[in-house]
């Protein structure tokens, strides 16, 4: 019994290490074969439509509601200290630094990441990737790399739209509904939000999240066992792993980016 448990543990460890090695090789191969994704940018644009444009509804609606809730909650807290004019700053900084990149990335992982894994996994299961190889076309260059770059380009754009929509939601609730002064809402926001420290760092975060999510999604699809069960398991793993990766990376990036900022 004990021997079998140790064997199982050893087996899982070996498989885990092997998988990390395979994922690293996959990532490097993807970067190495990215030429096609740029030379024939139409392929990447097409994938941007599927991963980016089709994610717009969920991103915009979620951004609006998150901003509206921030407006309500922020106003409740700020009015205790008599500084409700700072609502604009609170809403904008929360969104641009944290909620925009992180929540948009979590939504992107569940909306687009799962779709990418399922698509690649099914292409593998139905031998479409093998067929491509037999036609002397490298699936990493033709199928995987354009999806990767589409995800990496779409992610910061979606995060920016999420933040913009959130700020609009905060404005609707704070200014139009509750009656915070419109001038101070916008002017305080404008003077407090720093382009480099806040916006640029938020963009960097979302690019990193984009790389992580699309890499995980593509790898899980490419590595999925070619069965219905295999593809469904891979899709679930994509959402779970990439969500956890986003949260962990967010902590690490925040720790480095916002050290010493007041």
């Amino acid at each position, binding site marked *: 019994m004990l021997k079998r448990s140790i064997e199982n543990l050893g087996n899982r460890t070996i498989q885990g290490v092997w998988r990390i090695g395979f994922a690293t090789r996959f990532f490097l191969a993807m970067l190495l074969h990215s030429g096609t994704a740029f030379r024939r940018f139409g392929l990447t644009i097409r994938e941007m439509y599927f991963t980016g444009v089709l994610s717009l509804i969920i991103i915009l609606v979620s951004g609006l509601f998150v901003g509206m809730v921030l407006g309500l909650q922020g106003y409740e807290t700020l009015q205790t200290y008599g500084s409700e004019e700072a609502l604009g700053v609170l809403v904008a900084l929360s969104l641009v630094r944290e909620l925009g990149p992180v929540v948009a990335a979590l939504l992107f992982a569940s909306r687009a990441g799962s779709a990418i894994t399922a698509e690649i996994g099914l292409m593998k299961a139905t031998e479409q990737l093998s*067929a491509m190889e*037999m036609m*002397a076309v490298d699936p990493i260059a033709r199928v995987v790399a354009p999806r990767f770059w589409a995800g990496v380009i779409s992610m910061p754009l979606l995060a920016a739209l999420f933040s913009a929509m959130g700020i609009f939601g905060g404005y609707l609730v704070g200014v139009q509904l509750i009656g915070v002064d419109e001038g101070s809402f916008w002017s305080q926001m404008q003077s407090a939000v720093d382009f480099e420290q806040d916006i640029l760092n938020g963009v960097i975060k979302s690019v990193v999240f984009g790389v992580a999510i699309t890499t995980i999604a593509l790898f899980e699809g490419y590595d999925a066992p070619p069965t219905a069960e295999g593809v469904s398991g891979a899709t679930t793993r994509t959402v779970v792993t990439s969500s956890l990766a986003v949260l962990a990376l967010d902590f690490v990036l925040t720790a480095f980016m916002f050290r010493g900022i007041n």
Partner: protein
Amino acid sequence: MQHDNLVEIEDVVFGYGARPVLKGVNLTAKRGQIIAIMGSSGCGKTTLLRLIGGQVKPGQGTVRVAGESVGELDSAGLYRLRRKMGMLFQFGALFTDMSVFDNVAFQLREHTDLPEDAIRDLVLMKLHAVGLRGAAQLMPAELSGGMARRVALARAIALEPALVMYDEPFAGLDPISLGVTGNLIRRLTDTLGLTSLVVTHDVQESLKIVDYVYFVSEGVIVAKGSADDIRASDLPYVHQFVHGEADGPVPFHYPAPSYADDLRLGG
């Protein structure tokens, strides 16, 4: 110099992990012929195609296509060689996000600089050859199994390869589609001067069209010959296979402990 044999497999040994699949196979395919590779499911037929296509490398022995040793080629060499090959997968493996037209045009767009007008003409000619010119704008999901197989055939011959490999082209087809597919393979092989390798377990349909047959069982070639030789063969395995007998050298029962023991009748 052109070799008479397009494909030459010599003493090939191959296994997946510790499980041996092929244990010393010799096979040749002459140019312009249809060669059938027959045998029961899981006997290593498809693995032979994967070896020829370079998707896996032999453990021992050599696989030569057009004089080049497939196992020794680097990826650039392999991709160059694959342009001379076409492959028809078991269920077509059409790209589901592309129309029939785009599927057939895929290789022409990837590997040539032909203008779109010329590609259009070539694609329509290939689709006409398989009788599906009228289905050019359909999506793969709108096709029947037999039609999908024919589109995949048109796609496989788009670049006019020297060798076309067919993985179970007759599996799951109705009798009409079965005859259509068999005739197409024969006609295209003759008119385009191809060499065709057909992996199948459909004896009756394939014996009508093939020039030479190899029988694979348990990783070795157990019989070979023309279609008539195979029909007349008195080898027990071939006889069982050709006549579809339930029991024989290939047993009906999967190996198991004694029936009485399993039912605990021993007392």
